């Protein structure tokens, strides 16, 4: 089966990202496909490479980046939500006149159309939020 996953909360404050990550791993372990993981609302904060959690805690950004790398996952951060919260890739940083970008490896910034498309193309869309 083909899944789409939506993550609506940032890391650590809420469990949503952890649960979504565990769900994604379980989906892949069962041999299913993940069409896309879409990060919306504060969920975009999962996609900054500047988080530095304590060493004895999980690093959610790294976990997502590694999962994306090993399974060729499409991790999409909503551009409108990202701009409000200071998540930028190199292009956006240049376009907005900012002095740096912070998008994490394996994540890309794109529009809300990618969320709708995920709903259309996937057999199941699963939302993780508050």
């Amino acid at each position, binding site marked *: 089966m083909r899944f789409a996953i*939506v993550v*609506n909360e940032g890391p650590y404050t809420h469990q949503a990202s952890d649960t979504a990550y565990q769900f994604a791993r379980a989906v892949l372990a069962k041999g299913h496909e993940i069409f896309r993981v879409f990060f*919306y*609302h504060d969920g975009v904060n999962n996609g900054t490479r500047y988080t530095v959690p304590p060493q004895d805690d999980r690093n959610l950004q790294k976990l997502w980046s590694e999962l994306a790398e090993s399974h060729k996952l499409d991790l999409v951060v909503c551009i*409108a*939500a990202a701009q*409000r919260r200071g998540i930028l890739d190199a292009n956006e940083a240049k376009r907005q006149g900012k002095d740096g970008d912070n998008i994490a490896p394996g994540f890309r910034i794109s*529009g*809300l*159309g990618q*969320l*709708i*498309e995920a*709903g*259309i*193309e996937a057999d199941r*869309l699963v*939302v993780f*939020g508050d």
Partner: protein
Amino acid sequence: MSETKKKFLYVNRKAPYGTIYALESLEVVLIGAAFEQHVSLAFIDDGVYQLMDGQDTAAAGMKNFSKTYKALGDYEVRKLYVERESLDERGLKVENLMPVTYEDEDDDYAEKPSLIVVDRAEMSKIIAAQDVVLSF
């Protein structure tokens, strides 16, 4: 763009302004309208406050986006389901909600109400009948 036409339901559960969910949910609805899917909205729990008439955000210093709900008809979004129990539990009546209408092109563009009050059991059936449920 895909030929597939699915039933999308946007479930709004939070009051406006206190958190950003309502505003960003609307942004998805407006973008999603371009995809020509079957779209409806549900308002449950504190989400019913999103439809309160006479919203004034001046003192809070925030953008008042309540007019956007009234424009949804122009985006072919014509079904806004409101849960009766959620209204009752908050002491709200349908008269406290803003009028939201759409123009029915099959009926000489008559203005028709988009708000549909349903009870919890009906809402459950509506949600079960969808292909895609986005919950905010």
